[in-house]
């Protein structure tokens, strides 16, 4: 009896600690209450036993009151603290309590390639009437642990995400659904192979077309780290979870322009609010599908009712995803019928037929294609560019084909594509003849050219000269100390040298116009979707003004330019992330423009090139609306590549974070210009996360190549030539199909 009371007291003490940690000492005198409880706890055996029971009851009642009050006044930053609290439930708690049995794969505590990621085969059961049915699922997720150092708080290393991908593939082979649990502050930002960014990109690329139902549950959804296992058919979120583009502390540091040190607490709280990171916010934004309710102040590891609810929700979500691939009638019937955590009305077989798999993937594509679309700012009306119309028309046809024709007859489908291809190639100007000759030369067809026939003498007027060149002064190469480079005369440097130090090859940054004007055939660049502009979907304070300023300064509506162009006569579709507009960060407008451009490349069967003038990552002011551009765009990449498209990415200057960890990093061919800094997180973030400083050349392209992240290093002076040859050598006979 006494022992039970002692145990109860211990629980109350834990609760008090918990409330104190979340709400702070001053909240409803919780600090004092805790002190008293602690004293009570220490003197437990000296207090007369008859008094103990009533004292405990009093404390319990008080704590309950405080708890309810705490819940009422809960703010977003406190929610962030809940998800990080050691008392919060973890994936291992879920495996114990939600699943009927499980076997961890590739891990036993610390003995794990990455203890921050856990993979397990598990059984989950449901009762239908008197029958109990078992489903096999793959469970993959982050394990935060209850304070153990080696879990790194659920921050997955690159090889942890690689492990996750391996078990996803296993589930796919076995045809069982995957339940993902996201408990991560973010990916562990190191570049060692397979690389933080590149592995996330690889995961996203693969998850786009995983042929099994996938459900994710988010408790702590830290940006790119969350996306690494977050591209799923249905996204559930804990009521007291957060899902955000960046930690509130990180956002505050950026907002306050801090180099090091901690940002002020008020600013952190303000950011937590502005980032719209709660479950409710995310549901409103449409970045998640539903919320799993939690007890006041969040579920802790012993809240068994919560686990029961979670089990029910996971089964239901999986059922729904499966049923949507079957018939709408069944789905409706299921939705209307009464399902309870105790008993389901139906048993749903989670195995999918080949046809159902196709629909599953199609549904997934549609889901992400629609996500954040409501926030796209674009003038409606008849004055849309022809290219855009073409893209939409083509798109609708493509959907038509997949939905109707594919099912009935494969042959019709093929035929249709051929017709479409021939027409669109007529419409969109086919590969021109002179290029064919060059191409023939490369593949080795002997073309008898008469020697001693002088060619045309090139005129230099064709060259676009950077306005940077128009000053009579010299500059010093940043690598002069190391390589003894002479001072460079600016007109030479930014003119003839294309911004490259002729001695050491250091690349000085150049404005994006240089690339647009010098990389492509004269007069061939035609931008489209220019009017799609970045908006302020979160009503983030001050962001609208920043956008306005960026618009005025650059004359652009977003950081992404999309255009058609020709290079050596080869017609291509391209996008460029421009440094001048908010450091080339990606939000809703940029994501949408990217998708539309790559879709245009797909229907017009042209190579697709992404130039990264600079990208600073996902734009934090658009919160998760920005983050979901990662899966959205990567799906479009997958679709394009699978249909035979040639996708080439070229990095320049500073290319970091979300975009690299998704639609750029998933490109089969990635090249970087010399002097580019390429990676997942900058040196400051790495130092803050890992506690280790990184060498100055940590993000150099040489190291990126060494680590296997990119396919080659290019020199800006021969970028046009390199790109042209890349198109010819990698593009296959008609520059599109492999």
């Amino acid at each position, binding site marked *: 009896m006494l022992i039970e009371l002692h145990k109860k007291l211990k629980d109350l003490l834990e609760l008090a600690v918990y409330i104190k940690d979340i709400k702070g000492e001053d909240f409803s005198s919780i600090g004092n209450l805790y002190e008293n409880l602690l004293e009570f706890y220490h003197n437990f055996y000296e207090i007369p036993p008859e008094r103990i029971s009533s004292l405990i009851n009093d404390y319990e009642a008080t704590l309950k009151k405080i708890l309810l009050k705490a819940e009422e006044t809960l703010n977003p930053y406190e929610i962030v603290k809940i998800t990080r609290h050691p008392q919060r439930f973890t994936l291992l708690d879920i495996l114990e309590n939600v699943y009927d049995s499980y076997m961890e794969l590739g891990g036993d505590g610390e003995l794990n390639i990455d203890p921050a990621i856990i993979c397990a085969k598990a059984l989950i059961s449901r009762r239908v009437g008197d029958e109990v049915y078992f489903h096999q699922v793959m469970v993959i997720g982050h394990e935060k642990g209850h304070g153990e150092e080696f879990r790194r708080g659920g921050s997955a290393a690159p090889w942890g995400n690689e492990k996750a991908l391996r078990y996803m593939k296993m589930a796919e082979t076995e045809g069982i659904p995957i339940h993902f649990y996201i408990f991560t502050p973010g990916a562990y930002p190191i570049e060692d192979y397979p690389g933080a960014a590149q592995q996330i990109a690889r995961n996203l690329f693969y998850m786009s077309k995983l042929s099994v139902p996938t459900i994710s549950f988010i408790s702590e959804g830290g940006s790119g780290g969350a996306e690494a296992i977050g591209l799923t058919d249905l996204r559930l979120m804990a009521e007291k979870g957060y899902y955000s583009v960046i930690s509130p502390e990180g956002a505050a540091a950026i907002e306050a322009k801090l180099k090091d040190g901690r940002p002020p607490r008020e600013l952190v709280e303000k950011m937590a609010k502005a980032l719209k990171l709660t479950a409710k916010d995310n549901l409103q934004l449409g970045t998640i599908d539903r919320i799993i309710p939690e007890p006041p102040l969040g579920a802790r590891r012993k809240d068994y009712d919560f686990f029961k609810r979670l089990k029910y929700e996971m089964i239901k979500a999986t059922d729904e995803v499966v049923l949507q691939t079957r018939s709408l009638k069944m789905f409706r019937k299921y939705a209307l019928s009464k399902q309870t955590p105790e008993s389901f009305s139906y048993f749903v077989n989670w195995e999918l037929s080949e046809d159902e798999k196709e629909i599953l993937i199609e549904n997934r594509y549609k889901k992400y294609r629609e996500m954040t679309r409501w926030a796209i700012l674009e003038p409606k009306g008849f004055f849309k560019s022809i290219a855009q119309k073409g893209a939409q028309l083509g798109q609708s046809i493509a959907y038509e084909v997949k939905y109707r024709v594919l099912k009935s007859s494969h042959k019709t489908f093929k035929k249709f594509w051929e017709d479409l291809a021939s027409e669109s190639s007529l419409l969109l100007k086919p590969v021109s003849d002179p290029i064919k000759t060059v191409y023939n*030369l*490369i593949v*080795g067809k*002997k073309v*008898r*050219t*008469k*020697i*001693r026939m*002088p*060619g045309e*003498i090139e005129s230099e007027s064709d060259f676009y000269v950077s306005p940077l060149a128009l000053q*009579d002064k*010299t500059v010093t190469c940043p690598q002069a100390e190391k390589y003894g480079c*002479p*001072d460079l*005369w600016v*007109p*030479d440097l930014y003119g*003839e040298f294309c911004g490259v130090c002729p001695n050491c090859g250091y690349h000085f940054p150049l404005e994006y116009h240089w690339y647009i004007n010098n990389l492509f055939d004269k007069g061939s660049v035609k931008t489209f979707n220019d009017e799609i502009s970045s908006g302020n979907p979160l009503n983030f304070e001050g962001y609208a003004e920043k956008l306005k300023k960026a618009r005025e300064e650059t004359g652009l509506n977003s950081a992404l330019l999309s255009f058609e162009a020709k290079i050596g006569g080869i017609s291509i579709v391209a996008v460029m992330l421009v440094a001048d507009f908010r450091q080339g960060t990606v939000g809703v407008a940029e994501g949408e423009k990217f998708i539309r451009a790559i879709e245009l490349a797909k229907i017009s069967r042209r190579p697709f090139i992404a130039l990264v003038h600079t990208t600073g990552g996902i734009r934090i002011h658009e919160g998760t609306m920005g983050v979901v551009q990662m899966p959205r765009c990567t799906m479009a990449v997958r679709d394009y590549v699978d249909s035979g498209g040639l996708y080439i990415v070229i990095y320049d200057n500073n290319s970091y974070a979300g975009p690299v960890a998704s639609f750029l990093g998933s490109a089969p061919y990635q090249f970087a210009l010399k002097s580019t800094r390429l990676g997942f997180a900058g040196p400051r973030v790495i130092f803050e996360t890992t506690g280790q400083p990184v060498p100055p050349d940590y993000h150099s392209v040489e190291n990126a190549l060494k680590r296997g992240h990119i396919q080659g290093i290019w*020199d800006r002076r021969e970028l046009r030539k390199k790109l042209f040859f890349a198109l010819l050598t990698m593009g296959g006979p008609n520059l599109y199909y492999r």
Partner: protein
Amino acid sequence: MKDKVLIANRGEIAIRIMEACEALGLEYVAVYTKEDEESLHVRLAKKKYRISDYRDMNDLLAVADEEKCTAIHPGYGFLSENYRFARRVVKRERPLIWIGPSWEAIRDLGNKLYMKKVAYQLGIPVIPGSIEPIYNEIEAELKAEEILELAQEEGFQEVSFLVKAVAGGGGMGIEEVKNLEEIRPVFRKLRAYAKRLFGDEGIIIEIKIPVFQHLEVQILGSKHDEYVHFGTRNCTIQSPFRQKRIELAPGFCENISYEFDPKKVEEEIIQHSLNLAKHFNYDSVGTFEWLVTPEGKYYLMEVNTRIQVENEISAKISFIKNKPVNLLKEQIKVAFGEKLGYSQRDIEFRGISLEFRLIAEDTKRGFIPLSGVITKFDYRDYPWLTIRTHVPKDKPYTIPTQFDPNLALAIIYGENFNDLMEKSKRFLNEVVIEGKTFKGEPLATNINFLKEKLSDVYKFLAV
């Protein structure tokens, strides 16, 4: 305002430019580096600045601005054929007069492939071969086949090819190929080499001319569309690294019998050179280099868009309205926009002249350049002898290690071939250069080599 010339060079050419400036009544400023403090050009200069490097454009221009110079003379070597420097000199906010041809001419004529292309268009014979860079081995083989056909049509026997990196030069990135089968592997090897060394993969293929004489035409153009020539020179005697050692003017000799009419060939190469100069509006001194075969075929090789080391032998045999010529003075005058004041008809050629390049090099061991201290440099003065040197006669001189170890130029004038040979021999027998290397060994020079080679002058030589 009086004009002031910045002399952006060292050694004997700096001294010759100073003399020319003084003769024209121009002020000048000399520059030097730490290593050259003992050089005669530093001692003789009235106004001078120490700079970090003769190739440092920024130092040169900073000194020019500080001294309010109005013109810059690049001499030969260093920045003389750097069109970017020439361009910067004339395009900067405080422009200077570039004493040399326009930067466009330097660029276009300096680009051997482009020059060859233009020359070909103008009907000037160039060495049979590709005139576009080749990047692909299939193409390379094709070209080689065609070149072979062409060479056979022209009567070449046992043709071999020279595969060259476009960006190469000075004997680097060049390989001889004897038969067609070897083209591909050699091409691949050279392309990789060129990419690594020069960063440009472009390769050209030419036929190799086995036996030839190296002739060059001295041209002068003004800004007023006037063009004259100062005859030809013969520079066939070179070191194994194709550096000139003995030069003669004129290019052909009356005492030698040729299989062709030398007068006709000389006229033709002069005419071709003038045509090309006119095409580029060439407005300074320039040298057009030709290969002449024993059969009398000739091919344009390259154009040197600067004053040549050996310019003075042409000056020695030329007389404008019976007066001696100084090509440096002429070069400076035209750079300042003056008219020539004479035409080709006013130029007469008399006599024969020769130049020896006296160099500290070990001709027995691979012509390696030597450094050390010159303790004695002596020769007898004659009216027919001109010595151009920066080595002081009155005290020991340490040869700097950053530059070619050229010690002196000896220019000899003779009435006729036999007279010239006699004077040349006398000079070589009398001149004394003594010194020690840092290891304490006696310093070798190329005097004996020059003596041996004297018997080869005006001969067709095989490389």
